[in-house]
């Protein structure tokens, strides 16, 4: 795929031209020097047809995949290329092509290895930038070489088929927006039931050496005649629920151009992903609801895996699917941000929610 784009050099065509140039005069002029040139071309053709196949014998390729990719960010797939022992000809200039499907990508570098000898294991990287979210299908690996003369490219295919989810693009969100979203919840800072370093009282325990004086429960200690320390609760971070409102079909959005409407929906997904990521990085508990589509509901929690799951949910949203009627349960103790594609239509079920439209988001992101 990349090779055809990158180069206009056609060695096989050059060989045929050379043959056509030398063949007639070699026989018609009776000149052995031209015969020598002709046999040189023929010998190169013979070797060029045989050697690439020999070089690739015993080569095995395996992928080392990342957990996921992200739109707009470079993604690397590493190939582990090993060669069985007992093959005399080392392989040179081995290119590894991957048939990618499902997601638009912009390949910046395909994997290429200078040298794979018998018994060696070497690595090559495929670098690309996904342009759309979704499920990136890695259909098959093709390892090929045209060394030594480029006349024929020997190829070997390797499997198996694999998939990687490409998450939506995330952008930095203004801090004011997050602050506003936090304020939209019913409560402010809370404490959890777990022990921690907060201010609320959780219980007592026997004091340990090195305990801070202010943590000693003096009265209880006097009462029990032993040093007792106070235990405090863990402060609980603010909660934020991102509600992606995709209840309206693409065609029924306030946008005449269907393509622009679809771009607005994608921008809404991007906005939701950015909010989730920014909230996670700020230490908030974040959750996700997708209204109008069959998608998993994620309650507010913390953790990378939780964020990955939400991103995967966003990545796999099929905008061509049928839109279902929304279920409006998003918890009552969270700051809610509702993201809608075209324009803000306040949801009756979420009176205190902060509403954002993808159009606003897009214009804001495009403003330098």
């Amino acid at each position, binding site marked *: 795929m990349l090779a055809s784009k990158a*180069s206009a050099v056609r060695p096989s065509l050059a060989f045929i031209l050379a043959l056509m140039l030398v063949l007639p005069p070699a026989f018609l002029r009776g000149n*052995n020097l031209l015969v020598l040139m002709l046999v040189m071309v023929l010998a190169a053709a*013979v070797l060029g047809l045989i050697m690439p196949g020999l070089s690739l014998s015993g080569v095995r390729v395996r992928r080392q995949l990342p957990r996921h990719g992200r739109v707009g960010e470079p993604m690397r797939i590493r190939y582990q290329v090993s060669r069985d022992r007992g093959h005399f000809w080392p392989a040179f200039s081995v290119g590894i092509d991957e048939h990618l499907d499902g997601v638009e990508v912009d390949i910046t570098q395909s994997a290429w290895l200078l040298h794979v000898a018998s018994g060696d294991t070497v690595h090559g990287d495929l670098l690309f930038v996904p342009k759309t979210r979704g499920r990136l299908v890695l259909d098959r690996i093709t390892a090929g070489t045209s060394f030594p003369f480029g006349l024929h490219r020997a190829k070997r295919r390797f499997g198996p088929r694999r998939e990687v989810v490409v998450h939506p693009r995330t952008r930095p969100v203004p801090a004011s927006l997050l602050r506003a979203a936090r304020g939209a919840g019913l409560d402010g800072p809370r404490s959890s039931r777990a022990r921690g370093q907060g201010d609320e009282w959780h219980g007592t325990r026997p004091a340990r050496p090195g305990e801070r004086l202010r943590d000693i429960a003096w009265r209880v200690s006097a009462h029990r005649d032993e040093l007792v320390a106070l235990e405090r609760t863990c402060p609980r971070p603010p909660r934020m629920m991102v509600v992606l409102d995709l209840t309206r079909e693409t065609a029924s959005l306030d946008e005449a151009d269907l393509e622009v409407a679809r771009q607005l929906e994608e921008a809404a997904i991007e906005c939701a992903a950015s909010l989730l990521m920014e909230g996670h990085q700020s230490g908030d508990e974040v959750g996700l609801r997708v209204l109008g589509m069959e998608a998993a509901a994620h309650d507010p929690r913390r953790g990378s895996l939780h964020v990955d799951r939400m991103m995967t949910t966003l990545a796999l949203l099929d905008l061509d699917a049928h839109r279902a009627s929304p279920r409006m349960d998003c918890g009552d103790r969270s700051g809610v941000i509702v993201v809608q594609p075209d324009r803000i239509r306040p949801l009756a079920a979420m009176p205190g929610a902060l509403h954002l439209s993808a159009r606003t988001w897009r214009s804001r992101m495009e403003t330098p």
Partner: protein
Amino acid sequence: MTIDRVFSWSGAALVLLSVLGVGVALDAPWMLLAGGGMIVAARLVTEGPRGRWLSRRVSLLCTLGAALLGIALIAQQPADPLGPIAIFAVCLTVIKCLERRTMENEAERLVLSFLLVALSAMISVEALFGLIFLLWVPLAILVLLLFQVQHGRTTARGGSQDALPRLRPAGRRARKHLAMSVASNIVLMAGLIIGLFLVLPRGLTPELSSAVAAGVARTSAGNSQRLDLVSGARIISTDTQVARVELRTGPEPLGGILRLRTGTMSDYSGKGDWTPSWTSHLREVSVGPSWTRLDTLPEGASFTLEIELMRPLEWLPVPPGIEQIKVDRFTRLQWDASRGIVGAASSAAPLRYEVQAIAGDMPAASNIKGHWEWHDASVLLLARRILEEAGLPIRAPSSPRSRLTWIDAACDAFVEHLRSGRYQYTLDLRRVGQSDAIRYSTDPVTRFLLEEPVGHCEYFAAGFTALAQSVGIPARIVTGFVAFDRDVEGRWIVRDRDAHAWAEVLTEPGRWEAFDATPSAGPLLHGQEADYSFAARWARLRSAIELWWYGDVMGYDAAAQRMMGDMIFPQWRVWLTDAWRWAGRQRERLDLFFGFGIVGTVWALVVAALALGGGFVLLRRRRRRRRLAAQVGLVGAGRGALAAVSFYGEALRLLERGGHAKPEATTPLAWAEELRVDRPACGDALAWLARCMYRRRFSLHDNTPDAQVELHMNELARALGVRRGRGR
């Protein structure tokens, strides 16, 4: 050194070498200086990140200018367009070198380099160009290999060469492998080139090797019955030994110089073509290990020579005045008494023989006849002028005694004239007679005597003979060898370079006197010591290389190919013919056996086809067994173990035919799971078969009947929509 740097340097060297080839082919040193200089300068200017190069537009304009120049040159010389095309190609190469360094431009430079060498090969077959070509081939292979590496890397980086890091093989092992790969590819290519060059069919056109003939000729003066003075070739000779001669009995020849004759020519048919006299007559004689008398000569001091030939010759070198001969085996020779030469068929030529001869000049037959007149008036005028300058009458005196004296004096005058320094001795005649004014109009002998006094010994001998014949003196050209070099045992060593031509004049009845008009420019001809200086050695080495190039490489034609075939497989033609006849006889016997038309032949053909088909099927089965063994990890296992899991191989083939080939790196059960998503029946059947295969493969408890395996195989085939049976 990095691969980039080696590629860059070797690519530049390749282009430079091809321009050098064009310069040599066109004999244009200015092209080498201008083109080569431009290429070197271009390499320096375009190198590095601060390099400068021609823009596309300027490059196109320059190409247009070069094309116009080429067209103008072709218009000037429409008969010979190759030179202008080569000049245009050189200009194009220089422009390409001045362009930006991209892989496309590198490839175009490679193609242009090939084009330049091909054009040069069409123009010239010079040994020097051959040397350049032999250097160009391995360099071109190296550049091609490195180009593949560079091209692969650049393609992997999206075609951009900018900001690429230096490419260096990682570690000593990789460097060693790369060097080994380059070397082995060059060796393999060389082997293939030599092999293909030797076996590629020749003789498709009668002009094969005509280019060689136009460029150079081997020494033929030593063993030929014709002289051709129009070839315009360069005579090359080597130190190769032709014969060893030992004086058995009798006096030493004068000055220790031995003259051996192989032919005489006295009739001139014009256009530089000399032939033997029409009166000459070859007589067949049988000779053997005892003396055979060839001629009866007057009494005189005789001597005996033992001559050992190093290679068979068509005409045996013999001294003048030969009387008797004996050879090492019985054979038939041809004897011409009037010319004093002995011929032999090359295949049965004796390699050792002895001759007895009369010392002194060549005796002449009494009834000698010949064609002693020269019809060119200008040569006659020159001869008369020489005679006048020598104070001799321009016509022969009438009295026989005075006539003999006059002939002697006239011949000496002619020799003096030819050796006067006005005439130049050279073996390189490629430029002789090439002037437009004299190219097609003048006779070569007249040209040599009057217009362009440059030539080798044959020209001098022919000039002397022409002068002598023009004033009515019976004269003829003699070809043969003049040997003076001896080995430690005192034997004369006759070499290829000792080939010579001189003249004989019938100075008195019954006596041919030798006259050698060749000046001392042929240093070895006149008794001087052999030159062992560096220059002389280098000249001899060059001659040897040229002889190899022109004779063995350029002159390799259909005849040489047949000879080589006979040498390597002496009986191949016989074997081939015998095999063909044997097959024909067997076919006839079979037809007779069946007694009805060609039924026997048909039967034999059917049996042969069945045998071939059976062999093919067996081979295919063996391949499949090996493949299955590799797939299930039973390499080296017995046939029984493989037969137990052979159904799995068939299942894999069914999957392949059904468009669901199992990827190599996927386990059968995992693949069955994947298949289940779209084709549940297919996945189920494959999973069952895979489990069964595992049980049998690892010798677990398995009492699955084969019928059940067959049932699942049928089910898999049905689910895949393919038919079982083919390749089962």
